[in-house]
């Protein structure tokens, strides 16, 4: 390669590396803000601010859903390490199921209780026909989550 081109190539790649490094540091610094939600472990450990609007995400604990008056519901969410409670009044999304991942958007009123204004269903990366799902349950395997 002729020296002129080699020099230009080095400059271009060097600039790209510098930009990548700068972006990487920036993202590292802003990690807290880029995360869309807190996990129950983070909330229970006190990393989430009380009385502020936050988002929490986790799997709905099977058997924890309780319906109150009208549309109000409470349920527990877990990240398989810690569990916390969500209180919500409104229409739950179609994909809301026990065992399914959700994200609740609301105010943290106690160290482990969120008063949600919005509940979003999180979908996982598994796609399968109903028969396959049925067959897996018949065989007694728990649904793969990761």
């Amino acid at each position, binding site marked *: 390669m002729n020296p002129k*081109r080699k020099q*230009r*190539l080095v400059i*271009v790649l060097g*600039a*790209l590396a510098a*930009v*990548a490094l700068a*972006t990487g540091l920036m*993202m590292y610094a802003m*990690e807290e803000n*880029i*995360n*869309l*939600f*807190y*996990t129950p472990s983070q909330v229970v450990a006190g990393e989430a601010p009380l009385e502020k609007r936050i988002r929490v*995400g986790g799997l709905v604990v099977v058997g924890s859903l309780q319906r109150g008056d009208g549309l109000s519901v409470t349920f527990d969410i877990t990240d398989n390490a810690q569990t916390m409670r969500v209180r919500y009044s409104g229409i739950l*999304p*179609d*994909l809301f*199921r026990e065992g*399914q991942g959700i*994200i609740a958007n609301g105010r943290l009123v106690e160290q482990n209780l969120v008063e949600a204004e*919005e*509940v*979003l*269903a*999180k*979908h*996982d*990366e*598994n*796609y*399968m*026909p*109903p*028969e*396959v*799902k*049925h067959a897996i349950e018949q065989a007694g395997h728990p649904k*793969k989550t990761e």
Partner: protein
Amino acid sequence: MFATIKRLYHQFGSPRYFYDMTGKMLPWLIAGAVLLIIPGIVWGLAFAPPDYLQGNSYRIMYIHVPAASLAMGAYVMMAVAGVVVLVWRMKMAEMVARSIAPIGASFAFLCLITGAIWGKPTWGTWWVWDARLTSMLILLFLYIGVMALNMAIENAQSAARATAVLSIVGAVNIPIIKYSVEWWNTLHQPASISMTSSSMATEMLIPLLLCIFGFYFLFAVLLIMATRCEILQREQRSNWVRQLVENN
């Protein structure tokens, strides 16, 4: 191997050779796109089984996933062309880079729109500012920025060099989009398919793969057509283009 690549690089670096060769390749690429996309879409939309949780709404992925993959792939290609423009000063790379931007922008837009349409019934919202969705929106803005910069600078060569810098800098966004779902908590789910594995039932996966490959052929067709146009415009004063125009 390396010698072949080098020879092809030099041959396709000539606008005239590029124009002639791609003219011969075009019908085959169109045939490939039609033969992959039509069966893929029909199979995916009509015959693949519904999902156990989402029912039929998951079928939008037969457009969404190929569009997303291409929007990113096209950007990488544009950035690589940008490096060739800056380092080797190849005219053909300038024309290819310029032609990619609007096509890539269209696929990025298609990806965002289909994603929002799917998000409403599945997540319960059209849009959240999570890392995946936001970085994809930035990709669309980068494409638009590249297009605007191309149009703002009169001289084609200066425009190509300026946009090359922008596309190379923007390439940092591509790994961010790809790994956003692993690095941070996002509403968007992680990837279902990778080079080696898939967490999707086979009868859903095959039509998806057909669509993805088909979309790549479609991209090749669109890119070649746009680049050939660009060649005729940029080379309008050369003898071979004049002859070509006179003979038709």
